[in-house]
């Protein structure tokens, strides 16, 4: 879902009828999550831009840890992404205090969906990707969502960001089922780097987390810095 609005030129500046910006491409992001054998991987790019043209930071991770086996990546408007990350942390902390245990990924995905739908008619301009393992059984779970909380759980991969078509393309070509953590890392890393290369709003390297029951692999990727 893309929310388009006409960008308003500064007072006194000449009108440019060709300038129409989508709020979802104001900052830029690319996120992929994949399912492997008893593991999940989630990766994002590191670019943080303002008003599309200006790259302001190259270490902006869009993936947030909820607990040891649950991560959420958020694309879209950066300020909404940051606020939502805080809201999700808030909800999970209270859940953990009251229940005495961590949230299951499906439960968390529903919480995310609810938080987004609460703002159905004035939404957060962020699209999340949830990736995690069931804390008890270790079963992998990933899902993507639109900005008003429609979940789309799959058993292979989800992508979101500015260049979804490219990301889908590389994932479709390179993804295989039942990959071991190290293999999954290779695949998701290559998919991310290839996917962001054709998008000027995402890139500048990447970060990958591969989550297995007893191990976490986190690596930063070096890509084309442009």
């Amino acid at each position, binding site marked *: 879902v893309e929310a388009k609005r006409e960008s308003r030129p500064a007072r006194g500046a000449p009108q440019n009828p060709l300038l129409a910006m989508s709020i979802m491409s104001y900052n830029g992001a690319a996120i992929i999550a994949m399912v492997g054998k008893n593991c999940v991987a989630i990766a994002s790019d590191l670019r943080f831009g303002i008003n599309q043209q200006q790259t302001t930071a190259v270490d902006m991770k869009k993936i947030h840890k909820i607990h040891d086996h649950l991560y959420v990546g958020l694309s879209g408007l950066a300020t909404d992404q940051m606020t939502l990350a*805080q*809201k999700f*942390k*808030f909800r999970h*902390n*209270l859940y953990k*205090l*009251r229940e*005495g*245990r961590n949230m299951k990924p499906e439960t968390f995905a529903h919480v995310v969906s609810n938080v987004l739908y609460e703002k159905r008619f004035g939404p957060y301009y962020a699209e999340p990707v949830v990736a995690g393992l069931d804390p008890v059984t270790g079963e992998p779970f990933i899902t993507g969502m639109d900005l008003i909380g429609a979940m789309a759980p799959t058993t292979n991969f989800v992508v979101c960001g500015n260049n979804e078509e490219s990301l889908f393309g590389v994932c479709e070509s390179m993804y295989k089922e039942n990959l071991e953590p190290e293999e999954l890392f290779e695949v998701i890393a290559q998919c991310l780097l290839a996917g962001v290369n054709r998008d000027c709003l995402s890139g500048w390297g990447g970060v990958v987390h591969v989550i297995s029951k007893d191990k976490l692999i986190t690596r930063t990727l070096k890509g084309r810095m442009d």
Partner: protein
Amino acid sequence: MARRYDSHTTTFSPEGRLYQVEYAIEAISHAGAAVGLRTNEGVVLAAEKKILSKLLETSVASEKMCKLDDHVAVAVAGINSDANLLINSARLFAQRYAAGYSEPVPIEQLVHHLCDQKQGYTQFGGLRPFGVSFLFAGWDKSSGFQLYQSDPSGNYAGWTATAIGANNQAAQAILKSEYAPSMSLNAARKLALKVLKQTMDSTILMPEKVEMCEVARAHEVPSEKHIRFRMASDKELEELCGLANSATLPTS
């Protein structure tokens, strides 16, 4: 004389007393004792369990201790259902603070918020006060390890060592003579159980009758990430109770 002025919380007596608040404080002196000690390595809370039954399902929830956030916990003395309400309010306050400031809530602010709530029930609305006293144990970056005590009136104070609940005067007397601010966390754990043993009715301290928790450093460096709340395990309690039962207290 007192009977005329003790039904409404929002009325002073001619002697300038709030009887309902005093009665609430009296209610807590019948509750299970809780003792807290602060050291440079952490804060220890120990409490006597009053509800004991083989039929009781001991799940994750504890009777006396409660975690409010990763860096702060409370021990409860008084009416548990009243305490649950306040604990929920404290947890929400702590999370809202963390969401707004991106840092853990400073302990005194949390205590203050809870006490303001308690005070409200002594001044507005005509509702009875909360019959709960708390011992807060926590750590924050600016003030380090802290121990606070609050009562139904909404008063609170910071302590190096204190006790609430049944026989708390006896407990405080022992703490006065035996507590030293330079104690190690281990010594504080032992002293906490020694004090409980003296204030409880039984001659032998049974591990099933006590609970203990601490907010302490997990590693050497006292950064926010390394402070954690921990409930004492059954094995640990058994060990410490054994020590308390064999030790003899010096005559004061």
